[in-house]
């Protein structure tokens, strides 16, 4: 009994107090930071993604405090794209966001080092050192980045963002760091579609790695050899 109690105490001290699986009462302190043993990625199954559904876009806007506007000057971290093959009339609908490249062009061109790739493969902008030059927006082949033109108020505590900086999809880094899934993935699941699958590309046993092995996973503009972390199935 005593041994078991001591073990439980030690487990709680190590991992925070688990209220339910995947839900912690308080965050465990993570002093060592992220590791390159993990590479976060996402697989989009375009055969399950339907035209007209924008659940992922709304979830992203809500999670990150975006206005939801679609003018060229509004921030859009994820867009729904509708494609039609003219000759055979086949239509496709798919979300496009920052592809979290292993060799990101935005990082190559950034003059200040604000654009960077985290050890776990998530490409981010450090707004503390971004000077708003927008070179990265021009370098990105996916049109994934937005510039904040106007002063903002009422930002989310977890998602600081402000005027004069470039921003893009962060794979919901604030959620990933506490062990949760990105908001778009959860929203897609809640819609009952499960077109988005998030996980560790480096772990051969993870659901995403298995599905990619079995069903194949294409990159958009694979010719650029950027080794994207966001892959597509059925395009």
């Amino acid at each position, binding site marked *: 009994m005593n041994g078991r109690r001591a073990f439980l105490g030690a487990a709680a001290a190590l991992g925070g107090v688990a209220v339910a699986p995947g839900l912690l009462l308080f*965050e465990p*302190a993570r002093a060592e930071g992220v590791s390159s043993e993990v590479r976060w990625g996402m697989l989009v199954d375009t055969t399950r993604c339907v035209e007209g559904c924008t659940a992922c876009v709304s979830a992203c806007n809500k999670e990150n405090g975006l206005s939801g506007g679609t003018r060229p000057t509004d921030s859009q971290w994820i867009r729904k794209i509708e494609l039609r093959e003219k000759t055979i009339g086949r239509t496709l609908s798919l979300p496009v966001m920052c592809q979290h490249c292993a060799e990101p062009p935005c990082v190559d061109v950034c003059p200040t080092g604000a654009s960077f790739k985290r050890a776990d493969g998530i490409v981010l902008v450090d707004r*503390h050192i971004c000077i708003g030059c927008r070179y990265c927006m021009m370098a990105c082949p996916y049109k994934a980045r937005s510039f904040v033109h106007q002063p*903002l108020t009422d930002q989310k505590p977890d998602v600081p963002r402000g005027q004069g900086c470039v921003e893009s999809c962060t794979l919901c880094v604030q959620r990933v760091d506490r062990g949760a899934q990105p908001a778009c993935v959860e929203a897609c699941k809640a819609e009952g579609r499960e077109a988005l699958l998030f996980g560790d590309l480096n772990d051969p046993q993870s659901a995403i790695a298995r599905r990619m092995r079995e069903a194949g996973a294409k990159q958009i503009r694979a010719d650029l050899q950027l080794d994207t972390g966001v892959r597509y199935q059925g395009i």
Partner: protein
Amino acid sequence: MRSLAALALLALLVLPAGVTAGVDKPVLAPAKGEKCIAPPEVMRREHPDMLKHQRDLTVHQGVRGAKVNLEQCVECHASKQSGSVAATKQDFCESCHAYAGVKIDCFECHASRGEKK
């Protein structure tokens, strides 16, 4: 000569007002929490360095849940009236920074109030 006299008159008119008004002393309302992460004299002097050091670790290396945490600062020190640390001249951060004449950039991007529940 006339302009000099005018200047002297102006100085007489303006000076007394300037001397009596002064600058408001900072108002530091007690925080919600029991104890800060360091003694007040350390916090007063070192909080900018603490935050700057931590922000790089958190953004670039993904270190979360550290002792120094702006979100926690805001949570604890947000004023009861405005719910913020920097919305009015009486709020915790703003009252001191107004007194010292140092502009705070933090809250142009970071939320100056805790998560709305």
